[in-house]
């Protein structure tokens, strides 16, 4: 069932496209040798180039170009061997040159695609229109002084990739899935850290609504949304607003809007008419950027395994469900952890433990997998103890909790706590006999045909054996004992 907004006059479908600004991971800025580290003291990472001083000229950072190309390759996109930089002219206090160097006519990366998936949703391909390199602006702070704004240029000139999607998304969930998937790919590639709180990934959201089967109606752009959750919310409230406008006989104006998460509404960012004449033209300080096919091929050869490929491999190699595989590959560290656990073991069991017990424990502790108290090798060892029947599944859960608490290896826990599974049939038979003797009435009921009581007996025997009985042997012994006395 596809997503619709039920209006007064019938259902509306929504159309969403995203423009994501992703800060490139690099040591130095796109056109200067100043540092890019987050959180430095104001104006300490500013060269005269970044501050737009007279006579200063841009020189492009090769690594930033490589990062853009690697990202393009990760999006299965066309790489343009010749691209060009243009100036986007406008005045703002944190834009020192009075123009931003960007790529308007000839971006470095052309059309590509992203495969998105979410629970209960078929996986879908979302088109990428283009990716281009541009400079970030500085930061204006408006709350430090009653009459003035303060300008910090540390961020001015840091490389950004603007990644533009086709208007292919049809629900807030798809938009969220797109952003998550894009962030996963960027993190795999190491081209952007994807940290939306620090602003290293920001989204502009284009939203319109239409009746099924219609062409596109006017869209609005919601600027600078800084979390995936807010993107979903913003789409929903903006689409609902547009439906109301159309249904009331009004017209949606093409405009830029802001999402206010406190009020749960979008509002128009009214700017003066002429503010949008950016007067793009080729930057005469920069020649065309020409890269060779060999260089691109070299970058391609060194790309890491990307999430889709890894997911397919996990499915094939470990026999796990595609959805579990997508969950595991969403974070590179999770995938690596899983691979260590699953190597040479039962993949399904490994997936169940990682996505089940482990994720629950990490969630409870509020830590990421890097800080997991249970190391991947130890979780693997725990699975080995189950496989060779040293412990049974129930005991394994106890052992795991102990591992979470103490960080001790499972073998040590099993040994020191005497949790080794009992496979001695004599001990099991004794326990069975004791349980049956103590529950004569239940035995009679069972023999009278109440089969369901078998589980009760298993439970009692296990309890008597402090959980350590081998479940298969306990079953066998019970079946035998209950049959014998007929």
């Amino acid at each position, binding site marked *: 069932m596809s997503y619709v907004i039920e209006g007064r006059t019938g259902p509306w479908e929504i159309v969403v496209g995203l423009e994501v600004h992703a800060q490139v991971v690099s040591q*130095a800025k796109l056109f200067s040798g100043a540092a890019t580290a987050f959180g430095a003291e104001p*104006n300490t990472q500013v060269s005269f180039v970044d501050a737009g001083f007279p006579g200063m000229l841009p020189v492009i950072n090769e690594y930033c170009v490589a990062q853009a190309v690697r990202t393009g390759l990760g999006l299965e996109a066309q790489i343009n061997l010749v691209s060009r930089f243009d100036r986007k002219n406008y005045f703002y206090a944190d834009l020192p040159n009075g123009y931003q160097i960007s790529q308007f006519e000839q971006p470095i990366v052309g059309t590509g695609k992203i495969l998105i998936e979410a629970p209960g949703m078929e996986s879908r391909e979302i088109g990428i229109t283009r990716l281009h390199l541009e400079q970030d602006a500085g930061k204006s702070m408006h709350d430090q002084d009653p009459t003035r704004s*303060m300008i910090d240029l540390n961020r001015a000139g840091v490389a950004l990739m603007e990644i533009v999607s086709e208007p292919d998304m049809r629900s807030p969930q798809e938009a969220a899935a797109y952003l998550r998937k894009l962030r996963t790919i960027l993190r795999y590639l190491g081209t952007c850290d994807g940290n939306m709180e620090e602003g290293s990934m920001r989204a502009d959201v284009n939203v319109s609504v239409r009746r099924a089967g219609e062409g596109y109606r006017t869209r609005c752009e919601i600027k600078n949304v800084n979390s995936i959750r807010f993107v979903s919310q913003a789409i929903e409230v903006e689409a609902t607003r547009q439906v109301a406008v159309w249904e009331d006989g009004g017209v949606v104006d093409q405009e830029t809007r802001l999402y206010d998460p406190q009020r749960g509404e979008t509002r128009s960012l009214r700017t003066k008419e002429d503010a949008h004449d950016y007067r793009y033209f080729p930057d005469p300080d920069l020649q065309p950027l020409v890269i060779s096919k060999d260089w691109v091929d070299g970058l391609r050869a060194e790309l890491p395994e990307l999430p889709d490929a890894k997911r397919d491999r996990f499915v094939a190699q470990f026999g796990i469900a595609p959805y579990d595989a997508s969950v595991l590959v969403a974070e590179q560290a999770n995938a690596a952890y899983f691979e260590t656990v699953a190597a040479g073991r039962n993949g399904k069991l490994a997936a169940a433990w990682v996505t089940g017990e482990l994720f629950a424990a990490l969630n409870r502790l509020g830590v990421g997998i890097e800080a997991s108290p249970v190391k991947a090798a130890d979780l693997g060892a725990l699975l080995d103890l189950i496989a060779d029947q040293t412990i049974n599944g129930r005991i394994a859960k106890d052992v795991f909790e102990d591992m979470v608490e103490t960080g001790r290896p499972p073998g040590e826990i099993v040994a020191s706590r005497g949790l080794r599974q009992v496979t001695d049939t004599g001990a099991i038979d004794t326990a069975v006999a004791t349980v049956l003797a103590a529950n004569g009435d239940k035995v009679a009921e069972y023999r009278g045909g109440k089969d369901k009581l078998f589980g009760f007996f298993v439970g009692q025997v296990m309890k008597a054996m402090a959980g350590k009985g081998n479940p298969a042997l306990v079953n066998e012994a019970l079946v035998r004992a209950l049959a014998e006395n007929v």
Partner: protein
Amino acid sequence: MSLESATIKKIARLARIGLDEAAVTRLQAELNGIVGWVEQLNEVDVSGLAPLASVSGTTLHLRADVVNDGGDREAVLANAPGREGPFFAVPKVVE
């Protein structure tokens, strides 16, 4: 094409140059003279030509990703007409 005074005001606003009415009138005459003169280019047949943005004929050379600049806040702020502590200061921008 003749530039209206509204056009002069619009481009002055884009260029952030404050003009009084007298300046608008003067510039309207001057700019119309210049624009009228450059329109002689309309007689050139430019069909099929690629625009020439640069004569240098070279391509961009690439810099290594090394931090070797910045880090001198005093030098960056020394010429600022409205410095405030570690910042450049401007009249408050209301968003």
